[in-house]
């Protein structure tokens, strides 16, 4: 498969770009909700619109009411989300949770997917337990209890945890914290008895929770996939999420770069446009190169994932790391080249810097994934 968008994908990209620029732009969404101190961190109206466009269920199989599209397509939407810094539960609900639910029984799918696709039900995912992404260690426990389970433990960095209706929780049903096996995934209602959320606003104005499960009682049908066999579901979910986060990061990088290159063509100092200064030209051209490459490897990872390739896992980590490094460079160069006004809240470039920080951290940062690339490569 050639590493560029086919005609259908190019059309989708046009649609997504137009829609997100119009409806999801920074003034209309990020600043709007932030300045109102919105506790959800995103606009439900836009989310319903995205559902109407079919975006919310694009990764869900057609048989289950979705569009049956792949990660290249989801990445197209995510890149535009990134470029516009649009707050939405797309990554958590439509990529991570949707991927997990694919592994659920027909019963599970029937129960959750229609509302997810309609945008009526928002999903969060609860994976991390410390301040860094360590999915190999899961201490949250679900003990057998009657026909169901009792869930206890604490999860961190549950993005949309406060406003979501359901939370996909990775918990341990057997074995010890560092075991590969013994994981089970559960769909837990946000308001279940024994659950408590400590909602925190993050640097990018998104909302996340520290969520505590204190003997939360769950029916057996809350299980997604196999009991004790959840590692595969978790891995699939992480893989989709990482590739998705990379795509959103490409959008953040491109948005920051475009804004900065535009600024270089407008701002004058010392009687010249600052874009005339060769030192800045070279840095901008280097940044351009890195962004192109980050985008290429992200599309590569999407295609491998869609093709079910065993290479997808490695390439997902390459993409997540490369994008994290590149978007970081883009926002740093962006703020520096904007000079003083880049430090003001009035200009958008700082918002890109904040979003990059939170997005890069989500599902593993550049260091985590570079290390993972080494491990997967056998060194």
């Amino acid at each position: 498969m050639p590493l560029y968008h086919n005609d259908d994908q190019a059309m989708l990209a046009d649609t997504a770009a137009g829609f997100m620029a119009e409806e999801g732009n920074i003034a209309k969404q990020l600043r709007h909700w932030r300045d109102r101190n919105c506790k959800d961190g995103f606009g439900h109206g836009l989310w319903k619109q995205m559902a109407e466009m079919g975006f919310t269920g694009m990764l869900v199989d057609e048989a289950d009411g979705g569009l049956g599209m792949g990660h290249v397509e989801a990445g197209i939407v995510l890149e535009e989300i990134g470029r516009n810094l649009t707050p939405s539960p797309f990554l958590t609900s439509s990529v991570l949770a949707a991927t997990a639910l694919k592994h659920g029984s027909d019963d599970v799918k029937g129960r959750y997917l229609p509302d997810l696709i309609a945008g009526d039900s928002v999903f969060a995912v609860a994976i991390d337990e410390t301040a860094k992404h360590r999915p190999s260690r899961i201490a949250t426990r679900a003990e057998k209890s009657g026909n169901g389970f009792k869930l206890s433990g604490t999860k961190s960095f549950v993005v949309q945890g406060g406003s979501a209706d359901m939370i996909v929780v990775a918990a341990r049903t057997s074995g010890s914290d560092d075991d590969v096996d013994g994981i089970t995934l559960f769909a837990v209602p946000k308001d279940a008895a024994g659950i408590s959320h400590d909602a925190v606003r993050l640097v990018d104005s998104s909302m996340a929770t520290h969520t505590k499960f204190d003997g939360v009682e769950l029916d057996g049908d809350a299980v997604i996939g196999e009991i004790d066999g959840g590692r595969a579901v978790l891995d699939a979910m992480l893989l989709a999420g990482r590739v998705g986060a990379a795509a959103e990061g490409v959008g953040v990088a491109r948005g920051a770069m475009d804004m900065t290159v535009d600024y270089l063509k407008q701002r004058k100092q010392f009687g010249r446009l600052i874009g005339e200064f060769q030192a800045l030209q070279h840095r901008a051209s280097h940044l351009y190169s890195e962004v192109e490459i980050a985008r290429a490897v992200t599309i590569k990872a999407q295609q491998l994932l869609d093709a079910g390739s065993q290479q997808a896992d490695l390439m997902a980590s390459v993409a997540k790391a490369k994008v994290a490094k590149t978007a970081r460079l883009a926002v740093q160069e962006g703020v520096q080249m904007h000079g003083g006004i880049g430090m003001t809240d009035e200009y958008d470039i700082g918002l890109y810097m904040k979003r990059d920080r939170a997005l890069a951290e989500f599902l593993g940062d550049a260091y985590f994934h570079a290390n993972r690339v080494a491990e997967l490569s056998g060194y």
Partner: protein
Amino acid sequence: MADLETFRSETRAWLEANCPPEMREPVRDDEDVYWGGRRATFKNDAQKAWFEACVAKGYTVPAWPKEYGGAGLSPAEAKVLREEMSRINARPPLSSFGIWMLGPALLQFGTEGQKQRFLNEIARGEIRWCQGYSEPGSGSDLVSLQTYGEDKGDHWVVNGQKIWTSYADQADWIFCLVRTDKNDKYKGITFMLYDMASEGVTTKPILLISGNSPFCETFFDNVKVPKSYGEDVPAYVGEVNRGWDVAKYLLGHEREMISGAGGGERSAAIGAMMKRHAAKLGDELDPVLRAELAMFDVDALAYTAMGEKFLDEIKVGKAHPAQPNMMKYVGTELNKRRHELMMAVGGSRSLEWESEDTGGGKPARGWLRTKANSIEGGTSEVMLNVISKRILDLPGA
């Protein structure tokens, strides 16, 4: 040397007697810093007592001459005082742009009348000053400034706009670069001093990405500035139309100050601290992150040595006059890198913006604050230009 040791033990005793325990705690927020000025209030009695003891002793500006409110300490004595204050973690009794910026300019260029009046006001914390340099169209290219003072005989009428005026909304007076001759770019700027309460002055705080607003936009709408405030107290430093000399001197002084600060918190290695921090978060350092920390620590510790060398050389006039630009460049870039790494170790916890656990988002706000390091007081790009020109003597630089 014996004298210095005497001075040290006296100082130690004086600090013991005069610096209240509450003033020996690290500064935690803005209220812990006393800036002085007409509208200043003390946070508590300890802050007031410490400030007043220092004013009486001349220790708000220890190296200034006694007749201007200082203690007349020699450089060696001033160093001993710094060391002894640092030993007990004593807070600075007074912070102000008067001390850091205007004072040094007046000591260098001021008339006797100006020194008598303004330096004493600064030393006693009576007047809080702000700095009016940058304008929206002139950041790195400061000399292109447009704020204009029209000569009306015994006064100027000033019109224009400044940006990045630190705490202008809380300041009493401003030292301000104003164009007084439109025909000469460099020799057409006057370094004026005037009251922020003058009619026609308005300020508007600038909200930064860190969520703080330490800077303002400041507007001058037909502000009347008298040319003199009394005998031997002109309303400008140096000569009319020669304010650029004063400004350049101060910019150099500022860079030296920023770069000199490199010896302290900014340059410390962080790897060990980060390991402990990770452990506190129930975590350990990723191997690749650990390696980045190691590489950072190499650079940070090397820069600390450079800071020491730089200060040693400054003292005996061995440092290249443009070396502060190098120090500022490297120090600020390192500090940005430091906070990037600290944020990485802090992970999702460090992303929190308002939570109690993070003291209201201190890691994230501090990290964002560092991004200004390489912009304010001369951008990294300007520093590199200066090194190219003045140290490497590259053509056309």
